[in-house]
């Protein structure tokens, strides 16, 4: 086979200069994007930390002063919680511009984790105060600022609420050694169940988190069970049991 070389090389190949010019444009574009992405990740991490700290704070307040009235504690906790979450709301206000137009969906994956943690903390405070579930609009309201609403997706709302179950489980378990903790645990159990049963059939998106939620629910059920079994052995109302134990420890 002899060389069947084609016509001589075309003179004007993509010149170095034109490629360089082309890529120069990308560089600016990519750098801009990466920087924004980094800023949003950092902000989201800050939001996550603040929200986690808020959740810790709520647990802490609910456990301090064993003799205080449950209602009063809850009000105090919710108040302090909302106060702390205002820092998060301020962060979101500053992010409005970063997420204008199509940018919100572009950076949604970076923003979501923080937002879900915020919803978890917010709904926990709300539950302590009202004993019920904050609505989608309720969450949206807290994200209003002079430039408008910070965008909220249904999926973040639902996933944030899923995580709430875990905190309620912790709350129910650590609360039972308190006076009236037994009643509280039973309430939490009923609440989580109601919420849980309502969602399961409809929302497919939750499947990943669902097993965690149902584990939390089972843990709460176990607590309610243990309380009930214990108090069934003695034919005394739970409140009286509390009194007897308190007397015994202090003596």
């Amino acid at each position, binding site marked *: 086979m002899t060389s*069947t*070389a*084609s016509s001589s*090389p075309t003179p004007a190949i*993509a010149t170095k200069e034109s*490629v360089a010019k082309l890529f120069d444009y990308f560089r600016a574009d990519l750098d801009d994007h990466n920087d924004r992405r980094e800023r949003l990740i950092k902000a989201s991490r800050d939001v996550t930390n603040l929200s986690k700290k808020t959740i810790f704070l709520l647990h802490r307040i609910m456990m301090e002063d064993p003799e205080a009235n449950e209602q009063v504690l809850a009000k105090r906790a919710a108040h302090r919680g909302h106060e702390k979450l205002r820092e998060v709301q301020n962060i979101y206000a500053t992010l409005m511009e970063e997420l204008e137009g199509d940018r919100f969906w572009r950076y949604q994956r970076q923003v979501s984790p923080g937002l879900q943690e915020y919803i978890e903390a917010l709904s926990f405070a709300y539950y302590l105060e009202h004993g019920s579930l904050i609505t989608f609009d309720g969450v949206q309201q807290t994200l209003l600022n002079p430039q408008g609403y910070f965008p909220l997706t*249904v999926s973040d709302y639902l996933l944030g609420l899923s995580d709430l179950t875990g905190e309620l489980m912790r709350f129910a378990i650590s609360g039972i050694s308190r006076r009236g903790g037994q009643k509280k645990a039973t309430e939490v159990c009923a609440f989580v169940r109601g919420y849980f049963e309502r969602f399961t059939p409809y929302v497919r998106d939750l499947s990943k988190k669902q097993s965690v939620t149902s584990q939390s629910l089972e843990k709460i059920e176990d607590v309610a069970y243990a309380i009930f079994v214990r108090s069934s052995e003695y034919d005394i109302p739970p409140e009286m049991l509390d009194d007897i134990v308190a007397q015994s420890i202090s003596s």
Partner: protein
Amino acid sequence: MDAADLYRINDLLDNDVELREKIKEQVTELDKKARTMVGLLNKVHSTPSDAIPALLDFLNPVLLSCQETIIALAMIIPKNQFWRWKDMWSNSLRTAVFAAAFIQYLSDRTLVSLNQVAKILGIKEESKDRLTLPAEDYLHGLISLVNELSRLAVNAVTLGNFDEPIRISIFVKDLFAGFSMLNLKNDTLRRRFDSLKYDIRKIEEVVYDVSLRKLSPAINTQ
């Protein structure tokens, strides 16, 4: 959360499911076209250079027909939600970009620019809040082009075309230098870019074989 709220949320979720179905339909269409082009471009490796124009005549209509699908797709996407859904088609889109870039290389040995390729594929400035061509996808398409050109360098020689590897070498090196100017983060793009060095080595070795044996007169113009 009362029943009305639940109802509303459910509605929103249902809408998304429906939208996803519609998008999927168009993407399947786009994917078919992209695959057809890849199949035709495969023939390049066994086609003598003088028969390439005829092959391109087959390819161009398919490439053009992508416009229609992409315009239909853009009309489905809600305003500002481009980034929400783009993962559904980015693979097909990258393949289409690759095809467009390969076709242009074969036509006149030039690099198609991002704007050119967007225009060819029917991605319009005025609907950029629905569908746009992200730099990332364009760059992925170019990397696939380099992958294919390194194979072409080998097969062109087998077909007796000793100049093609040299042209490819120059073209790819320019492109690689362009890529090197970018600050890529640690993602697929960077990994694929890093792997380009294997393609470049392969091309360099072909040029080496040709030049060592003095098989191409063009070698001195590099």
